[in-house]
């Protein structure tokens, strides 16, 4: 479940690549909703300059521990710094953008 976009030279924002890792729990309604919402946001604001890794927590419990995942769904923004964790189904667009550092 990996999706990568190319660097987009047309964006006005700073040239930064986003490495994102999303932990979901199987195909629960809330997980599905989270993936959908996040994709929409990413395509809209970070087209071609993000890497999104979607991980099913049930399949990789060790990774869950190593990444210190508690609440789910959880999106970990690895780059650019600062490292941020976003939890929830990403229905609150404002907070997602703030969390990703796109909007302040």
């Amino acid at each position, binding site marked *: 479940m990996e999706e990568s976009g190319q660097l987009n030279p047309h964006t006005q924002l700073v040239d930064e690549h986003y490495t994102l890792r999303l*932990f979901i*729990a199987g195909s*629960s309604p*809330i997980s599905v*909703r*989270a993936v959908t*919402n996040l994709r929409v946001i990413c395509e809209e604001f970070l087209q071609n300059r993000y890497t999104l890794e979607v991980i099913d*927590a*049930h399949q990789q*419990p*060790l990774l*869950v*521990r190593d990444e*210190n*995942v*508690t*609440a*789910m*769904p*959880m999106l970990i923004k690895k780059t650019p710094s*600062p*490292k*941020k*964790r*976003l*939890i*929830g*189904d*990403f*229905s*609150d667009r404002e*907070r*997602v953008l*703030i*969390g990703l550092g796109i909007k302040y």
Partner: protein
Amino acid sequence: MGGLPSGRPTLICGEAGSGKTLFSIEFIVKGALNYGEPGVFMAFEEKADELKTNVASLGFDLEKLESDKKIRIDYVHIDRAEIEETGEYDLEGLFIRLGYAIDSIGAKRVVLDTIENLFSGLKNEGILRAEIRRLFQFLKSKGVTAIITGERGEKSLTRQGLEEYVSDCVILLDHRIINQISTRRLRIVKYRGSVHGTNEYPFLIDDEGISVLPVTSLELNKDVSSDSISSGVPALDQMLGNAGFYRGSSILASGTAGTGKTRIAASFANATCLRKEKCLFFAFEESPKQIIRNMRSIGMDLQKHVDKGYLEFYASRPTLFGLEMHLVAIHKAIRKFKPDVVILDPITNLITIGSVSEVKTMLVRLIDFLQTEQITVMFTALTLNNIVNEQTDEGVSSLVDAWLLIRDIENNGERNRGLYIMKSRGMKHSNQIREFVITDNGLDLVDVFLTEEGVLTGSAREARLLLEQTGEIIHEQAISRKDRELIRKRKVLESKIDSLRSEFESAEEELNKVYVEEALKKQIMGDTLSKMTDLRRADVSKPIKSKKKSR
């Protein structure tokens, strides 16, 4: 009483520093080491490394246990600054981690320390409460015995009201400081489906972890022994119905300063060691060396018992730590040494670190413990002169089985010791006051003199003894004089009797002589008469002649 409810969650709450984390980690470690039950420790507060370092001081090697797959430590950290909530979420991640940790080592025990930290990291309380409820269901379905710790709140047991989720067992830890000495206490608030002690149980954290001691045993159903053991002072044994103390009983020796309480205790210890039994001597006043030296002065060699391992001293200053710590230390020392006799000298000093009632409770618990272990115990206690009634400060007099009271008897400008037995349960004991003397060869009890002037002790007794001895000699002499008089009189009388008898004999002889003479006379006369008759008869041949002559 039988441990935590298995397969169910238990809530442990308390203030900061009350020992929650330690209690729970000990639960995990002991489970893994002693019961073969692997455990998962989920830390929300301390990092795994910190935790390992902290409990290493208690001798728990978490590193090794973890590599042996006996325990698993999982550090859950939620940094509020790092987290952005963007909508609905759940704590599935936590469940997955916990579930994985449990399954990977087959854990039977789980600790969540302190789950309330989630509330500081996540804002949505509604979700958290629902998820925590789900978590407890999850733990129950996994069949693990769980401990959940919680910080104590202002009004409720925990800040977030966790107790509403955990309904099976709630334990409250408390840490109080009274008179600069801290005491930790534990109370079982509720425990469904189990008879539990509702009292506060003091507990301790020391280099071996947590020790809990019940305040008192719930029932009075201890075994008793009717064997008796010598007190080490033969005369005292005699006072105690010729037997000594009962094995497993508690003895109190109280008296004012310098009356020889320690000596009584030491001779009891000596007697125990001579029987090749073990004795543990808790000295709260003197150092072991001091005691050994002092007892040598009365001809008692305790050092050889120490060398042979029959006697062990345990000396500590009462102010060193709290009463609880003392009690636990005593327990530990007793369990380690397994003595037959325990001596505490003196208990009075313990009062400096606790109130009367606390000392009393401590001693009750100690006596309880010792009686269940069938260990004879002797306490010494200092009574103050100004206390009129015969109570010891510690109020233990009602608890003990036998009570020896040593009193000063001041008389004739000197001070002497009088010993009597205030009580001795189940024994025919003497009601007499004996004088308690310390000689070069040990202790002895001497009968006091009861005279018209009262009880005499010390030099007065000696003087009296002397007086009586003189009296006796004089008396004896008087008697012998009388005897001699009698003998003399007898002799006189006897000689008189002799002379009388000889007089009588001579008289008798005289009388006899008369008789004999008379008889002789008679005989002679008879003879002559017959002779004359015969002569006359010769004349019968010539009767006429004779007739003529006679007429």
